[in-house]
C-alpha cells in the first residue's frame, strides 16, 4: 500500500491546486485480497490495489466534488480544477456554513494501525482447513477470507491533516448439507488471531443440527437473536433514525421523543469509533475526531450522530466525527455501534425460553417504514425451535415483519458476551438478545 508520506504529499498537491475559498481532499487507499470458496473448493481469488482521491471545493456557499484514482500530479491538479470549476457552476447552498477546522486527532495504538501483508498461500492454507473439516463432516463449505490494508487521509485548507491505516481481516463461512446450513463469521486485524478451526466447528455444528427442518406456523414467538442478527437490526436502526439528518428531516423515530423512553430500559446503545474492541478509526471522512455518542441510555432517546454540515445548522452542536465522504446524501451515520452487555449466558437465553425460536442470522433485511422502524427479512443458516428451555428441532426459515423499536422494547434478557460484527468502515459490538415477542409473518420451503 502507498505509504503515509506519499499519500499526504499527493493530498497536499491536490489541495494546493484547488482554487476555492475552502477545499478538502480525502484519500482512501486499499490493497485488498479475498479468497472465496464454495462447494469445498476455491473458486474465486482476487486482489486489488486502488487509491481514490476525493476533492471538495467550496466557493462561497457553492460546492463541487470531483474524484479520480490517478495519483499523477497532472491528474490531481486536473481533478482539483474540475472540483472548483463545478463549484463555480453550482448554485449556493444557503445551509452550508463551513468545512470543519483542525482538532487534535487521537492516535491509535501501533498494533491497530500496522499494515500486515498476507500471501495467497496463507489464505489458502486456512481455507483448506475449513474445507477439510467440512468434508470430514460430510457437508459442503462456502465462504470467504479477506485480508487487506486500508488507509484514509484527510486534509483541508483550514488546517485539517489526518492519516490513519489499518489491516482488516474478515472471515465468513456457510456450511451446507442437502437440507440445512450453518454459519460463522469473524472480523479482526490479525490473521493469526483468527481461529479458523473453531469458527468452522460452529458452522458445521449448526449445519448438522439443523438437518431435516420442520415447518412452524408463522406468528408471535419468543425469539433468541444471536449477535449477527442483532447487528443487522441495529445497523438498520442506525441508518433509519440515528443520524442528525434524519432528525432534521423529521424521519427519525426519535423525532419528538428525545429524553423519553423509546425502547426497553435495559437497552444502552452508543457509538464509539475509538473503542479498540470494535474496528476503531480515529477520525471521520472530514478529518473530525471520533467522539463517543450516547444514542439510547436506559431505554431513553439521548442523541444522534452529527457531521459538520448538520451540526452547523443548529446552535450548540458540533460534529461528533460521523461524516461520510462528500457528496454525502445519507447524512452522518453511526458506524461503530455498541450495545451494552447483559448477564445471561448463551445457555441462559435458551433455558429461559418456554416456546420460542433461535435465530442465527437474518438475510436480506430491508426497511418497510422508516418512522415506525418496521423492517422485514428472512432467517438463515440455523433456525431452531426452543421448547421448555432446550432446542428441540430445526426449523424451516421464517420471514419476520417487525418494528425494531418494538423488538428492543420487548427484550427479556441480554447476553453477557459480545461479538464484533463487521460493517461498512467499522463494525458493531453486540450481544445476543432474547425478545419476548417477535412477529414472524411467513415461512419458506427450506
Amino acid at each position: 500500500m502507498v505509504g503515509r508520506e506519499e499519500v499526504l504529499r499527493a493530498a497536499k498537491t491536490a489541495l494546493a491546486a484547488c482554487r476555492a475559498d475552502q477545499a478538502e481532499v480525502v484519500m482512501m487507499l486499499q490493497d485488498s485480497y479475498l479468497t472465496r470458496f464454495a462447494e469445498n473448493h476455491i473458486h474465486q481469488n482476487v486482489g486489488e490495489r486502488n487509491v481514490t482521491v476525493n476533492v471538495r471545493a467550496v466557493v462561497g456557499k457553492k460546492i463541487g466534488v470531483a474524484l479520480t484514482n490517478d495519483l499523477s500530479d497532472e491528474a490531481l491538479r486536473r481533478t482539483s480544477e474540475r472540483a472548483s470549476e463545478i463549484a463555480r457552476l453550482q448554485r449556493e447552498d444557503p445551509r452550508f456554513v463551513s468545512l470543519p477546522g483542525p482538532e487534535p486527532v487521537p492516535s491509535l495504538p501501533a498494533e491497530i494501525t500496522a499494515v500486515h501483508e498476507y500471501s495467497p498461500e496463507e489464505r489458502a492454507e486456512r481455507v483448506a482447513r475449513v474445507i477439510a473439516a467440512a468434508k470430514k463432516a460430510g457437508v459442503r463449505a462456502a465462504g470467504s477470507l479477506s485480508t487487506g490494508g486500508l488507509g484514509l487521509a484527510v486534509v483541508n485548507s483550514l488546517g485539517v491533516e489526518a492519516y490513519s491505516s489499518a489491516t482488516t481481516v474478515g472471515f465468513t463461512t456457510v456450511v451446507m448439507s442437502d437440507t440445512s446450513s450453518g454459519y460463522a463469521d469473524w472480523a479482526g486485524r490479525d490473521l493469526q488471531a483468527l481461529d479458523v478451526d473453531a469458527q468452522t466447528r460452529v458452522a458445521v455444528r449448526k449445519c448438522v443440527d439443523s438437518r431435516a427442518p420442520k415447518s412452524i406456523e408463522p406468528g408471535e414467538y419468543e425469539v433468541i437473536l444471536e449477535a449477527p442478527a442483532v447487528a443487522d437490526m441495529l445497523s438498520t436502526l442506525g441508518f433509519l433514525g440515528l443520524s442528525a439528518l434524519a432528525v432534521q428531516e423529521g424521519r427519525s423515530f426519535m423525532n419528538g421523543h428525545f429524553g423519553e423512553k423509546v425502547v426497553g430500559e435495559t437497552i444502552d446503545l452508543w457509538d464509539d469509533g475509538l473503542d479498540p474492541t470494535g474496528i476503531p478509526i480515529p477520525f471521520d471522512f472530514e478529518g473530525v475526531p471520533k467522539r463517543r455518542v450516547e444514542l439510547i441510555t436506559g431505554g431513553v432517546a439521548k442523541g444522534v450522530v452529527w457531521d459538520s454540515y448538520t451540526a452547523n445548522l443548529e446552535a450548540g452542536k458540533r460534529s461528533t466525527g460521523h461524516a461520510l465522504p462528500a457528496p454525502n446524501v445519507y447524512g452522518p451515520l453511526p458506524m461503530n455501534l455498541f450495545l451494552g452487555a447483559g448477564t445471561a449466558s448463551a445457555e441462559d437465553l435458551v433455558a429461559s425460553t418456554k416456546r420460542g425460536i433461535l435465530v442465527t442470522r437474518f438475510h436480506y433485511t430491508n426497511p418497510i417504514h422508516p418512522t415506525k422502524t418496521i423492517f422485514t427479512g428472512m432467517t438463515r443458516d440455523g433456525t431452531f425451535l426452543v421448547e421448555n428451555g432446550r432446542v428441540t428441532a430445526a426449523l424451516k426459515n421464517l420471514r419476520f415483519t417487525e418494528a425494531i423499536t418494538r423488538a428492543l422494547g420487548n427484550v427479556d434478557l441480554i447476553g453477557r458476551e459480545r461479538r464484533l460484527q463487521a460493517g461498512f468502515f467499522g463494525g458493531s459490538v453486540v450481544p445476543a438478545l432474547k425478545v419476548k415477542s417477535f412477529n414472524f409473518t411467513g415461512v419458506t420451503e427450506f
Partner: protein
Amino acid sequence: MPDLHETVLEAIRRRGAEYGDVRFTERKDETVRVKNGSVEAVTAMESAGFGVRVLCDGAWGFCASSEVSAEEVVRVAEEAVAIARASARERHEAVQLAPVKPTVDTYRTPVRQDPFEVKLEDRIALLLEAERRMHAGGPIRVGEAEVSVRQERKRFYSTEGSAIDQVITQAGGGMSATAIGNGEMQRRGYPNAHRGHFASRGWEFIEDMDLIGQAERVGREAVELLSAKQCPSGRSDIILDGRQLALQIHESCGHPVELDRALGTEASLAGTSFLTPDKLGKFQYGSAAVNIVADATIEGGLGTFGYDDEGVPAQRTMVIDHGRFVNYLTSRETAPALGRAANGTMRADGWSRQPLIRMTNINLLPGDWDVDELIRDTKDGLYLEINRSWSIDDKRLNFQFGTEVGWEIKDGALGAMVKNPTYTGITPEFWNSCDAVTDRRSWNLWGTPNCGKGEPGQVARVGHGAAPARFRNVRVGVGRW
C-alpha cells in the same frame, strides 16, 4: 491510458497460464442532485485501471490495479498467476472454458445526444425546476431530484486472440417527494423509486422523462398518501404496474436463473437458487402467460452491450417459455456443466472486479390484454405501483415487497388510494397465479442501476422490461400497522 495489453498477455503466457485476459477500463460519472430548492451535490468521478484474470493449473486468479504502467501491469499479471496457483491448491475439477470465437470488434452505445455535452447549468436548472414544482403539489418535507450520466470504455484482450473495444453510455435519474405528518412518512417517486430510471441512452432519455410535467402530481400524491387508508390485510387479486413488476422479475426470476448461484458459488453471501439444474426444461415456473427473456441486445436497455466481459457476444435467450424454465444465465466456466454454450452474461463492476454472471435485460414479454380491460376484468383487488421495499430468501422463494402506493379495485374500477401496501408469496406459486399480462402499449424497459452481488461487492446495471400483470389470490397487508 497507455496501450499495454501485449505486455500483459506476454507476462501471462510467460508465467505458464493456460488462459488469460485483461480489461483496461476508464469510467466517468457525473451526478447532479438537488434537494429542497438547493443543489445538494454536483460530482464528477473518474476511475481507471485494469484487471487481469488468469487460469492456471485449472484454477482462477484475478488481480487489478489503478496504476497503469509497464512495470505495474507485469507485477499484477504475475500476482494473478500466483493467486491462481494458490487457488489450485484447493480446486475442484480443473476449469474448462466453453469455446468462444476470438473476436476483434468495437461496440458503441447509440446515443442521439452525448449526455456529457449537456451543460451542468442546464442539468441543475432542470432539476431545480422539477423539484420546485413537486412542492406545488402540497406540503412536501423533502423534495429530491437527480440526474446521473456514465460513460465507460472497456478494452478487452485475451490470450485466445480477442480484442474488443466498447464504449457504453448511460443516463438516468428521477425525483421523489417525501411528506411527513400525523406519525406517517410517505414517499412518491417518478419515473421510478430508488434513484429513478436508467437506460443505455443519451440525454434524450432524460428529456423524454418529462420530469417537470410530472412533478406536481408526484408531490400531490405523496401528501395524499398521508391520509390514505391502510392497505387491507388478507388475500387479494393484485395488478402490479411495470415498475414494481420489474423488481419482482429481478428478485424472483433474474437472480435464481444465474447459473453460478444454482451451482452454489454464491452460497455464502447472496445464497443459492431453488431453480436447481435438475429442474431445467421441466419445471413449471409460472403460468402459460409468463414468458421471460434475457436480452442483452435490445436497444436502450441498461443491460445492453456488444460483448460481455469475457468476450462473448451479447445474446437474446429465452429463460421462461410459456411458464416453463428453459435456460440459465451462463458463463464460459459454467455453461459446460449443462453441455451448452456461454450466453454472454459475465460482467464486472469496473476495472477492479472479476466478472460474474449478471442479469442483462430480463424482460417479461408483453401479453395481449389492454390495461384498462384488465382492470375492468378484476372484480375485487389492488393495483400496486412502484417499489418501496424488497426482501427475498436465499433460495429466492419467499419474497415480500412493499410498494409506494396502491389503489383498490372494486367491480372493475380503480377506487380509493391505500398506503403502506405489502404483498408476499412463494415464487413459483406466485408466477403460476399470473393469469394476464398487458400488451406492448403498456410495456416499458425499466433500468435498475443498483444490483448487488459477489465478494468483494459489485454493483451491476440491469434492465427489466415489463407491462402491468395480474396475479390471483395473493397475500397482502403483511405485518402489524
